[in-house]
């Protein structure tokens, strides 16, 4: 059926309802920034960018399950637990630096695969309720995890007496091996940490082990990224031209995109070359002007390796969608029934998607913790699921559709919300202290709103499909076909009845 309401107003309305979450967050961030005189552009950027690298991989971990129709995988919490389980022995034996971190990744892999397999099994048993099952599995796994870190370590697995990670215990003033891991332990200072620099016997830890490998200034990174994006756009266009698959409207879009990234590159160049502004004076001409100070200078340093890791996994996620397994995931996500009828092993595909997500969640958690520098043993994993899901949703994803773009945009907006929350608190309540409440409200609010909208849209679509107009549009379209059909049948029958009907008589006997 042709949609007759394809006019500007309805398209605008559709755009608003489809992107309402993102729009709310943009308004919130802009309002929050304007009402926070204490925050400069570079200050805001600095906070947002550092959180972006901290959480990036965790949010990417959610994309594949959405594709496979599992919804938002709140179950990456078990991946986070796998990460903590992997970090504990590495820290216990004091293996530090990038080597120690790589060891964490290696140990986390089999644990996360096992956890992911179990979670995937559970999802197959709780079909249609995967998101709730994911939340519950996080709580349930936490219980088992606590038993392990509080009782098994030290209780069953022997530990050294007086180890700083273990809850201390002494008998008659003599330290004996304790039971359980402390509520918090640190990841060990990085070699470049001021305290570590003063200590000639310092053993490098895991803290910032990846972040501090190679850092460059934000403006340089932004310049490189902007040039990279422009190069990508140009290459893609040239390729498309070769295949002659260019529509007219894309020319304008292409121009706008290139222009935007060009401006970004100029802005970055400005920050790189004249961070504090510069006075130009041409003595001969008696003319001069002053370039303003760069708003983005002083944002800080960018962890290049962490950034590259996130980039690589973004590319891998995109690559995955183009593989046979990715196509199977999409088929399963669209319709388990049809996928099954086509011979795709639906259960297995769903389990693989969950396992990939759990592993990425575990590795993302390791990156998160090396950035944080300390591990709250019992609680570090708790918010991971909720916050990652909320960030993805803010980027415009739904429980049925998510991509790398949503993850990137969502990460930036969601964490900008965190930074400007105190400003909004002041604006609305006259009190900055409600910031925590505002953050919680926005985080859980966005999850509720997104899921609510998703269910609402799905139900609308189902109703539309079941409605009368969907299969039987009102007249005049319907009457004609049937009538002519009937007539066609009649005339042929009349001819046949006029013919001798001996055949009829034969067979009845």
């Amino acid at each position: 059926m042709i949609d007759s309401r394809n006019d500007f107003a309805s398209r605008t309305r559709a755009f608003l309802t489809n992107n309402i979450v993102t729009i709310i967050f943009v308004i919130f961030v802009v309002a929050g920034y304007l009402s926070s005189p204490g925050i400069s552009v570079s200050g805001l950027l600095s906070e947002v960018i550092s959180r972006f690298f901290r959480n990036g991989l965790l949010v990417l971990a959610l994309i594949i399950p959405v594709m496979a129709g599992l919804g938002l995988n709140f179950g990456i919490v078990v991946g986070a637990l796998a990460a903590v389980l992997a970090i504990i022995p590495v820290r216990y034996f004091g293996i530090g630096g990038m080597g120690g971190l790589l060891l964490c990744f290696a140990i986390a892999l089999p644990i996360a695969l096992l956890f992911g397999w179990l979670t995937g099994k559970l999802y197959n048993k709780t079909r249609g309720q995967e998101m709730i099952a994911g939340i519950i599995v996080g709580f349930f796994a936490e219980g088992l995890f606590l038993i392990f870190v509080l009782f098994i370590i030290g209780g069953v697995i022997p530990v050294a007496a007086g180890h700083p990670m273990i809850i201390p215990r002494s008998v008659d003033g003599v330290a004996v091996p304790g039971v359980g891991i402390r509520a918090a332990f640190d990841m060990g200072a990085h070699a470049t940490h001021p305290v570590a620099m003063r200590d000639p016997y310092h053993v490098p830890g895991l803290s910032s082990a990846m972040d501090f490998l190679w850092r460059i200034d934000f403006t340089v990174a932004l310049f490189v990224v902007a040039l990279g994006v422009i190069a990508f756009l140009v290459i893609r266009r040239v390729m498309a031209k070769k295949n002659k698959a260019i529509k007219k409207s894309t020319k304008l879009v292409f121009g706008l995109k290139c222009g935007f990234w060009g401006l970004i590159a100029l802005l970055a160049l400005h920050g790189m070359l004249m961070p504090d502004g510069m006075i130009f004076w041409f003595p001969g001409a008696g003319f001069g002007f002053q370039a303003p100070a760069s708003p983005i200078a002083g944002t800080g340093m960018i962890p290049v390796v962490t950034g590259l890791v996130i980039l690589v996994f973004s590319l891998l996620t995109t690559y995955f969608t183009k593989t046979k397994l990715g196509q199977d995931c999409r088929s399963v996500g669209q319709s388990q029934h049809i996928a099954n009828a086509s011979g795709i092993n639906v259960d297995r595909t769903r389990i693989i998607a969950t396992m990939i997500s759990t592993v990425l969640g575990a590795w993302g958690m390791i990156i998160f913790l090396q950035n944080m520098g300390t591990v709250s043993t019992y609680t570090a994993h708790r918010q991971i699921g909720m916050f990652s899901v909320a960030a993805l949703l803010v980027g415009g994803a739904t429980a049925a559709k998510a991509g790398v773009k949503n993850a990137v945009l969502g990460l930036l907006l969601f964490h900008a919300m965190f930074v400007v929350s105190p400003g909004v608190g002041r604006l609305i309540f006259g009190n900055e202290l409600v910031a925590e409440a505002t953050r919680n409200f926005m985080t859980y609010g966005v999850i509720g709103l997104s899921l609510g909208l998703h269910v609402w849209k799905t139900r609308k679509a189902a109703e539309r499909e079941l409605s009368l107009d969907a299969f039987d549009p009102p007249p005049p379209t319907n009457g004609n076909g049937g009538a002519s059909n009937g007539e066609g049948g009649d005339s042929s029958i009349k001819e046949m009845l006029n013919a001798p009907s001996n055949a009829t008589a034969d067979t009845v006997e």
Partner: protein
Amino acid sequence: MAQNLLEFRGVSKNYADNQVLHDINIEIKAGEIHALIGENGAGKSTLMNILFGMPVIHSTGGFEGEVCICGEPVKIMSPHDAMEMGIGMVHQEFMLIPAFTIAENIKINREIPKENALNSTMSRIFGERMKTLDFKTMNQDARRALDRLEMSLDEFALVAGLPIGYMQFVEIAREIDKTNTRILVLDEPTAVLAESEAESLLSAMRKLAAEGIAIVFISHRLDEIINVCDRVTVLRDGELVVTKDVKDTNVIEIAELMIGRKVSIGKEDNEAREISDDVIFEIKDLHVAMPSERVRGVDLKVRRGEILGIGGLAGQGKLGIANGVMGMYPARGEVLFEGKPLPLNRTKQVLKSGVGFVSEDRKGIGLLLDEPIDDNIAFTEMSIHGNFLNFLGLCDSKAIRENALKMIKDLDIRCTNEKQHTGRLSGGNQQKVCVARALTQKPKLLFVSEPTRGVDIGAKKLILDLLRSLAQDQGMTIIMTSSELAELCSICDSVTIICEGKVIGTLPPDASPVEFGLMMSGICTSALDSENVKEGEVAQ
């Protein structure tokens, strides 16, 4: 064409004690279009389930006899086996993913991986499924399959925006794109198509048959069968009636063979009852969106005190009428009851105005299976008229019990007592509880859908007698919908046949099987020269 491509040899199938197929022998040659027709329950779908190795067959003890392909007996244990042996199926309901392109749908789970260095490395480490896909070749394959069907669709268009008629072609394209497809089963492929689309589908079928593919064509449209098929096999009540060359037969004969001679179930007086011309209930241009039972503009008049039967093949919309009037599914149109318009899509209003409903979905919406009989009987009346409630608005259990005891006695419901849960009753007694519940509302008009479905033969007669006595003795008007023509003919005063969501015509219960058969395939006999029909009857 000497060898038979597909052969059923002595195939029989029982579901528990119920024999649904009895010694079926069919031979289908390469390049042949073979029609398979029969009423509901004739065994068409069971036969196709056997051909496809559906789990429903093998979980119920398999079947007797054998299926042969190219003369060799084969074991088909799963749909996957069937696919391997080159059997393709186009289902009545579409198996297409709307958010995928046509090419992706055609190539689902048969995607072609790219062969390059990266892929071979990836597949060595992570397995075959990590190869990237060659969308270019996939699109070309899809294009070729669509060209074979002479469809000019873009292979990279999304299925979501396609007109419903084109989806059928995408399904067929998917089946013929499988390189080894030799046998293609089309289950009612033209039911959803407009006339011109159906015409191009038929010509595509002829083209495929000319390429040597054997086509099994299941359809209720007899004129199409005559038009396109080489041979036709008629099934009735699980038995093979006959296989004939289409050139040796005609529509009338096929219709007659399909229906057969029905023995009326215990009809005592054959005289037509005197019924007033007072129209109590009238439907004008009713459309109902009941999935798989869609109603597309039905007009109907029901006289006071009459039992009107509504018949037709499954999926043609006969069940949608009662459900639409009662507001179970979205409906549009005009319904007049005793001269006053009934609001559509308002179940409570309709019940209140004196229309009762016994649904075909007894266990789904007819009964609360975990509640006792007496409550089940009283529930509707309680919420419609507020009876069986005491002055506090709570259940008056004494009145409920008394009413239930009366109904149990009147309708002869076999139960341990009135507190027995309805889930524990036999099908026939459950049906009686449903009728009792409707009767408790004291309706002037009663819709009864499939009253004898899942009811054993003895109870069938009791229920039909009950309906008849309601009409005869209490003057109730009854609209009975049933898939069983025999029972419609045995108690109804007239029978209306629905096909493709429309009324085809109304016949007296003693009309000839030919007339019923033709009407069920959408051919209106009232427009025919009536003398010819009579001649036909004489000739028999």
